[in-house]
């Protein structure tokens, strides 16, 4: 789905392409990528600021996902009663006060634990949902729900829906990019960022940020010596000519034009992507602020900074994952909150703090939404020195365009065991994000196997209380 048309004059474009080494010349310009007849109703409207159904506050999204079920009562949901009564036997378990200390921060006086000193500085920019809940307390199912709205495998995730509904902001980069943890994939693997029944053009581009080849196949690898720069350049020219002759026999088939154009766009991506991925173009100071170079924060720092660079360059939706599947190196802190959660928090806190500050400083919050999410929360009861899964309550935060700064919606109960007031679930969350993107979640549908499918299934209410 392509909606932007390049207006670069032919000659300079040609030169531009030569320079960036992709090499291809004189191709037909234009918005040629066909939509494959699977489009959502309508298309983004300029008069709605790019919204589909109403004016959009948000044009692009960065979603930070804490894989494993980040504990709310040890981070953003201060429960004084839990702290006071820690060790008491209540409701079939032992209350477990957070091993961290809590302080109030910012103008809004938000309580944040000592696990997140960097994010604590930015609470005046964040909106919290503190009474999130989900039907399930199993990683796989809850991760599917949080990402796709369904507990079953095979449904499109939010990033794919956004790509499907709103398309690209730039032809030079994919609409939807996923930056998984350097070490491994989250629970459900790539199922979490499946495009499900939506066409492959809405698939996530899974980018390995720290790798020598962040986008696989962006360039030929060194194993094939015949694939030289010159062979590429001359080859794309000859391929275009050959395809053009073939296409001229049937000009009515726009797929043939689209395929020709796709090679041009690919070449532009070859040019744009390395620049986008080159973090050394940022100042040393900023890199350090993100924690790049520090063993603990380097991976998340790189990916947070890359996320900013990508949305700046027109990627619609970027997902940054913290943690992989399995029992360690993620937010599934059954074993120990004091050390396990802390270790994970140390990896993300500084980079996330830097990302908030960076987005704000660059004015990107004018149309960018940043979200901190997880699949479920954790129990108020102890499990040794850790906590078990808890779908009854968890916390997420949002920041940036369209949401109230320094705000909190919803309350958990006295121990943080259950969402109490202002309860919201993943459907409401998805409805709200789509709403901010100028999209009515009940109208963004795709007919699959007889059902008009939605990201929000048949549920979801926009959480108006957090809208600015």
């Amino acid at each position, binding site marked *: 789905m392509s909606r932007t048309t390049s207006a670069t004059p032919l000659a300079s474009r040609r030169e531009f392409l030569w320079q960036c080494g992709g090499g291809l010349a004189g191709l037909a310009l234009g918005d040629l990528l066909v939509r494959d007849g699977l489009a959502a109703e309508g298309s983004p409207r300029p008069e709605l600021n790019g919204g589909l159904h109403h004016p959009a506050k948000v044009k692009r999204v960065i979603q930070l996902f804490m894989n494993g079920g980040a504990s709310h009562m040890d981070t953003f949901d201060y429960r004084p009663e839990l702290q006071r009564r820690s060790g008491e036997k209540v409701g079939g378990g032992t209350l477990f006060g957070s091993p961290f200390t809590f302080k109030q921060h910012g103008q809004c006086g938000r309580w944040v634990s000592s696990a997140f000193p960097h994010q604590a500085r930015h609470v005046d920019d964040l909106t919290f949902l503190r009474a999130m809940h989900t039907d399930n307390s199993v990683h796989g*199912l809850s991760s599917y729900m949080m990402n796709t709205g369904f507990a079953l495998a*095979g449904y499109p995730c939010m990033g794919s829906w956004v790509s499907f509904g709103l398309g690209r902001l730039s032809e030079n980069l994919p609409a939807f990019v996923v930056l998984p943890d350097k070490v491994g994939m989250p629970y*459900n693997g*790539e199922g979490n960022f499946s495009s499900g*029944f939506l066409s492959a053009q809405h698939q996530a581009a899974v980018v390995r940020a720290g790798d020598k080849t962040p986008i696989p196949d962006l360039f030929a690898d060194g194993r094939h010596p*015949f694939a030289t720069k010159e062979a590429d350049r001359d080859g794309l020219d000859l391929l275009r000519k050959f395809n053009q002759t073939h296409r001229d026999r049937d000009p009515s088939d726009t797929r043939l034009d689209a395929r020709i154009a796709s*090679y041009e766009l690919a070449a*532009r991506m070859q040019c744009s992507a390395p620049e986008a991925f080159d973090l050394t173009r940022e100042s040393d100071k900023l890199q350090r602020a993100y924690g790049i170079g520090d063993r603990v924060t380097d991976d998340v720092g790189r990916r947070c900074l890359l996320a900013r660079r990508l949305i700046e360059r027109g990627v619609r939706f970027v997902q940054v994952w913290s943690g992989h599947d399995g*029992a360690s190196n993620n937010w599934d802190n059954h074993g120990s909150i004091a050390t396990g959660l802390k270790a994970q928090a140390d990896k993300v806190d500084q980079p996330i703090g830097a990302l908030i500050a960076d987005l704000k400083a660059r004015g990107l919050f004018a149309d960018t939404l940043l979200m901190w999410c997880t699949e479920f929360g954790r129990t108020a009861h102890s499990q040794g020195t850790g906590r078990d899964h808890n779908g009854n309550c968890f916390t997420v935060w949002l920041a940036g365009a369209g949401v109230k700064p320094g705000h909190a919606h919803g309350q958990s109960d006295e121990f943080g065991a259950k969402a109490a007031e202002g309860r919201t679930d993943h459907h409401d969350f998805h409805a709200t994000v789509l709403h901010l993107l100028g999209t009515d979640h009940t109208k963004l549908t795709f007919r699959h196997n007889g059902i008009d499918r939605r990201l929000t299934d048949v549920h979801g209410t926009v959480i108006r209380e957090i809208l600015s």
Partner: protein
Amino acid sequence: MHASTRLRLRFTSLLAAAWVLLSLTTGPAADEPKPVDAAGVEFFEKNVRPVLVKHCYSCHSHAGGKMRGGLALDSRSGWEKGGDSGPAVVPGKPDKSLLIQAVKHASADTKMPPKEKLSAAEIDTLTEWVRRGAPDPRVLAKSAGAEEWWSLKPLVKPEVPGKNLGHPIDAFVHAKLREKQLTPSPEADRRTLVRRVTFDLHGLPPTPEEVEAFVSSRDPQAYEKLIDRLLASPRYGERWGRHWLDVVRYGDSRGNEHDGFRESMWRYRDYVIDAVNTDKPYDRFVKEQIAADALFPEDAALTAALGFLAAGPDVLSGSDDTIRDEFVTTTMSAFASTTAHCAHCHDHKFDPISQADYYALQAVFAGVQRRDVTIDLDPTVRATRAKWTALKAAAGKGDRGALLTPEVKEVVAGWEKSLADKSPRWQAIHPKSATATSGAAIEVRRDGSVLVAKSAADTDMYTLTIPGPIADARLLRLELLPDPALPGGGPGLGGGGVFALSELEVVQFTSEKDKGSKVGFKSSQSDVASKDTPVSRVHDGKEDTAWTGGELKSRKARTAVFELGKPLTVPAGGRLEIVLKQRQSGKLIGCFRLSVSDQALSPYALLPAAVAEALAVPAEKRSDDNWLSLAVHALPVVADEEVKRLPLPTSFHVVAGSLPHEGKVSAPRTINILRRGNAGKPIGPAKPGALSCVTALKPRLEPERAKSEAALRIYLADWLCDRNNPLTWRSIVNRVWHHHFGRGIVDTVNDFGRMGGLPSHPELLDWLACEFRDNGMSLKKLHRLIVTSATYRQAASPNAAAQKVDADNRLLWRMNRTRLDAESYRDAVLAVSGRLDLTPGGPGVLQFEVKPGFNTTKLANYEAVNWDAPGVARRSVYRFIFRTRPDPFMSALDFPDASQYVPVRPTSVTPLQALVLFNNPFVLHHSDHLARRIAKDEPDAGAQVTRAFRLTLQRAPTSEESADFTEYAKKHGLAAACRLLLNSNEFLFVE
């Protein structure tokens, strides 16, 4: 209301009422129609319906598209079931009816309509209606119109237009074209045709030789012969079987968080390919997948067909309701192109499918579940295994009746004969010295036995020293021997010959200087088993426990065998010390012997005392008790040996109840209809059945038949395969048409409902469906029929005039150009580069490097695969499909998420796809292979280019193309030129 409509309503209501009576069971009839008297109907139609339509339907009806609070007021079942607050009307009791409370605005919570109260007269009407018992004929309103919908109309074979001249398909298609003043395109050239039909039927390109043979053939039957050859090849089943795997969401892993491998799922894949290749009649194909176990119990290999409902991802969420929902969805989408699953939470919003129908289908699957099963496919093997299992069980129970038979005696005799061969060879070990801590005298005799004739000590410890070499000892035997010199005849020095051995220790010294290391025992056994003082006590590390050999009565000898922790070798110059610790007062050992064997532990290492005694009696003199002792011991030994010799049973991953070979019968459970699909809100039991809107067939199973789980699935299989089912036959011929033309006659191939597409050629669809159904249900015949039509054979060239009238080519004035799907692209690249391995079947091929992951889910690296390793470059249908680690190459070419139903593959065009085709190592690697293959035979650059064109595009290049590509190949290499051809639209599209 027209009289006729009313008549029909009443008629169908009566029919329905009769039906209810027939099938009445206990419990509430959740959604079954009830008879309404004429006066009631009149009151309703004249007074009540207008009020409901005017004030309620906009928020509470299917037509309004809304069911606020879950409540629909457009049918009787709607208010009977009610919404979230329960039934809206209690017939006869206005004051107990929520509807009446709501319209009266009696409670602040529910005031209906919310904005504007009804007039007093309208409220009175509704109240009076409820008081009269709420007569409401609308139950069947939607079903009554069912047969007016095209897909539910009875299947009647239409007349072929014209005078039955020429090909029937063309007659239908050309008639439609004529209506729009369109003409079909001329026949495609022969090169295009052979390429088209080979990709279509095989998913592979024809070789240059095949192209040449067809193009130059003068045989008027050349095309028909080509089709016959293609349909007879196993490549056909691999291509068309894959289409079916899309329908069932085939994958080789479980999906979800713990995405473990399903090691035997491939048997279903092979079943499908085989069924297609052998042209299994379609009804049989349907029946086997739903109920092979119930319908064809004698053919255990058909268990593979039951992978149909197991091929999709695991469903881990929620209740069994969710799992059965998948069964219903898969079955009805696949075989009936019907969205029955839309009636899970409420009556279908658009199609005449009630929630009761939906749960009737769920109830069919009430006794099945996802299972891993293993079966001996060979009945003889199965019988043999069963025989030995039974004999072993009889031995375990000491069942005299089963054991004292001539057959068993024969088995025992065979076992007895084998003893000489199978019993371990024992070598007595002769101690060089033997000492007792007490100083008691120890005599070592010539046979290696050791005698302590008397001792003054109360407790003692004997130490025997045995010099090396000892080679590879695995077993150690301790015999306690009676001796006339001992009190009571031995073997102990205690009263009556009792003894107690506290610990037995073996210490090895590899040389004189060695400080010694203890040799552990893996296991131990004794000829007289004792629960209270088992022989394991001598190696439990506790000196206060002992083995006493059980009660010593007539038989005084005792033997114990110890399995050494690891094989023991003592070199010459080394030694072994064996220590017998005896800590129980007055129970010292008097006479014993130690032996070793280099054989592994087996059931022949030690015979129980009773067995040894029975063996000592000559066969002809043995008592029944002797025989019993022998049988109890020998049968399990022989049974294990015999079973071990059998071929391994075959594993399947299936959805099934108890299978025939398991000898159990599963009873279906009661399935409840659930309010809004909520497992916590049952409304009443569902009656097993299918869709009521298929009026030619019985919509429910008779209650007496519904008691057997197998009967439920047989019913559904029969229902689907009934010649009068209008959905099944239309569904399959449309699927086949879709794959031949890139688009179905109905383009929503899984949805023939009101929200689906309409058939472009309804008469043709029905004609094909009847033709297919009535002529052996042969897919191969159907293919032959379709691909021999002029419609299929016409060119795909453009036509500006036709374009204006029918840009979409719905009327088929030309052939559609289709893009290769992911498998065809990959297989074609392998084929043209000469690398395709055509080995069929078997476990999925890992086209990725696999490593252990952080949980069950393994890591997969697709870039690291070595395409040249043996068995990797197989056809894509045989690759292992790993749900949560999909192959990015295949995904870029629209291979779908394997957890979703894919009735129609999308074809996308993206820059990432271009990058993948241009740069992925698979394409580059095989460009290289292709170039080498060509260069091997062709030294000339120009000829090489021609050959590359012939292999990839099935044609020679034009002179300009030849010049361009030759120049390019000279500059950058032939491999680089091949890479371009593999990226060309001409390669990717089939005309």
